[in-house]
């Protein structure tokens, strides 16, 4: 009986401990944010890595998301003569959901995994301990810039993704499916609110926090050499993606 409880309880205890450690990491990151020295250049370097270098991936994802969305909704709307709503459907879906979520997923795959791998390698090669001995706080020097960069860059990537997705939807709807371009745009303007875009961007910033926090946490808590680094990377991507979807639901419920 006790064994059974131990068997059932261990993952639960592990989960609760993990949550606690992640929250503690977040809190210490926040507290280190306001303490000198401020290493702006390090933040910029991370911003380049998170934002600028992800732009091509995000644009391709966004464009094809918008295009396929236009194609799919067109067939649905044609059944009751609502083809003119394709544009607004694409725009609304992109700005509210698909833009932020797909961007976050792509960035998780590209950046979150890299963070976990990088920090994990530093952890197993004891570089983080070296930083500590040089009285450089590893949280301030490694974690905080990554989290700030992700929080700032995700909305920028998302707005680009939104725009490219709508342009992709426009291309498919107007050039391939012959929907009137004026009505296509007018319906977007008519139905999509600025609020939809902003809420999408807030979501994106939140996703940025999640993916960078998980990536950094998995990185600095890596144990077990090269194998451990690989496991940390995989875990960080899976956990980040799952948390992004879960939090997306609750954020949507709260915001809309």
């Amino acid at each position: 009986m006790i064994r059974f409880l131990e068997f059932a309880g261990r993952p639960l205890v592990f989960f609760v401990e993990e949550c606690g450690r992640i929250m503690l990491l977040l809190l210490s990151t926040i507290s280190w944010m306001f303490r000198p020295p401020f290493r702006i250049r390090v933040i910029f370097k991370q911003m380049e890595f998170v934002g600028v270098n992800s732009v091509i991936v995000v644009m391709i994802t966004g464009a094809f998301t918008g295009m396929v969305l236009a194609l799919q909704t067109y067939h649905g709307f044609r059944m009751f003569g609502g083809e003119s709503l394709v544009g607004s459907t694409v725009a609304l879906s992109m700005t509210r959901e698909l833009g932020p979520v797909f961007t976050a997923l792509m960035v998780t795959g590209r950046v979150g995994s890299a963070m976990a791998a990088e920090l994990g390698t530093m952890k197993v090669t004891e570089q983080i301990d070296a930083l500590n001995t040089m009285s450089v706080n590893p949280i301030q020097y490694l974690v905080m810039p990554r989290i700030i960069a992700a929080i700032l860059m995700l909305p920028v990537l998302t707005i680009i993704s939104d725009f490219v997705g709508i342009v992709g939807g426009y291309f498919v709807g107007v050039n391939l499916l012959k929907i009137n371009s004026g009505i296509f745009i007018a319906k977007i303007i008519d139905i999509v609110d600025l609020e939809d875009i902003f809420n999408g961007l807030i979501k994106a910033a939140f996703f940025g926090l999640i993916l960078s926090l998980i990536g950094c946490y998995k990185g600095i808590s890596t144990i077990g050499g090269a194998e451990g680094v690989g496991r940390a990377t995989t875990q960080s991507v899976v956990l980040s993606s799952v948390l992004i979807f879960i939090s997306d639901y609750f954020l949507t419920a709260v915001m809309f």
Partner: protein
Amino acid sequence: MSNLSIEAKVGVFVVIGIIILGYMSMRLGKLGFKMDKGYEVKVYFDSASGLEEDVSVEIAGVEVGRVSKVLLEDGKALVILRIDSNVKLRKDVKASIGTRGILGDKYVVLVQGSSAAPLIEPGGRIVSTTTATDLDSLMNVLGEVAKNISTLTRSFANVMGGEKGEASLRSIVDSMQAVAETLNRTVQENNEELVKIIANLSEFSATINEISSKINKGEGSIGKLINEEDTVEKLNGTLASLKEITEKINRGEGSIGKLLNDEETVETLNSTLTSINDYMQKQESFRTYLDYRGEYLFDSNDVKSYLSLRIQPREDKYYLLQVVDDPGGVESVTDITTTTNGVTTTEHIEKKEKNEIKFSAQIAKRYYDLGLRGGIFESTGGFAFDYYLLKDRLTLSMEAFDFDSDSNAHLKFKADFTPFKHLYITSGFDDFISDEGNESFFIGAGINFLDEDITTILSDLPFYK
């Protein structure tokens, strides 16, 4: 790319993102660069079902503002509209809730009224609202109809029986009582008048009595007519022949009988009656005036009276029929030469017949303020000019008639002034170039009635207070 600094790369990236965000915001236009906040207008709807904040307000399909707030006030939906300041709304603008598209999105439709109406102030209210006929309102109407029917049946039930019906019956009786009381009071208050009326009536009946008794006794022409045996026989004969004729007519004998017994005739008669009816209706535009005037002639100390009937088929045309009682009368001069015993005496007799009755019949036509009259004036030919002043209240007239070869024409100048509706005063100079000494200054007064007025006065008189 590689020779750009990290900051530059991140900067360009962020700027691109901000530009895209800015562009989309502007296109969506709900925050944008619109500095023009416009002004607010209130409107009350019975139902603002489906109306959201920030939906568009349109005039003729053009967006002129947005719904700012939808609130509840006194059971009605108070909708506050924010209208662009370059759009001016008139007071008689009509507001309704429109439905757009298959999904039934609601928006506010304004219909501008006339450009003459004053503008609505900011914060003002649109008074006129119409509910658009969508499915909701249709259901509302149906519901209302059902409600009305149920109220109707309920009120029937209430009227037919129950305490309420009793109460209403009682209230009816009460009000009847009140009416009776009022009537009573009216009689008491008007007692004097009533007594007078009764006295007049009794006098009137006495007179009639007298007349009928005279007739009975065979006095007077009617009495004789009735009391003479001969007349009665004649009358009997007449009646008999009348009977004969009507019988003939009944049988369809004779031309009248045929006429009357023919279906066609009836139809013709019907159409004739219709046309007569039409004609009578036209007659209503006719005005008939009765006019009495008396003129006091200073020189002869006499009163000259005129009783006239003025038939006015149109505003600018009338016919005048007049009876004149002229105290001057007709003067006849006769020389009687008698020869008695070789002495010839010539008697010069001037005979002035008093109270001569004369007749006038004239036609008159009016051109703006000038009227022309012509016809018979006091039994002789003549013509006259009238000039109307002060909205017809003052009339200046010049009449010329009696163009006899042996005396000067009769010329008359008069001025009629009407200070009150039916009463007028007159003054003038009669026959002022007379060579017979008839010239006289006169002053007088008259009453003038539209003959409907007479009826009105007669029927109203006892109740005048």
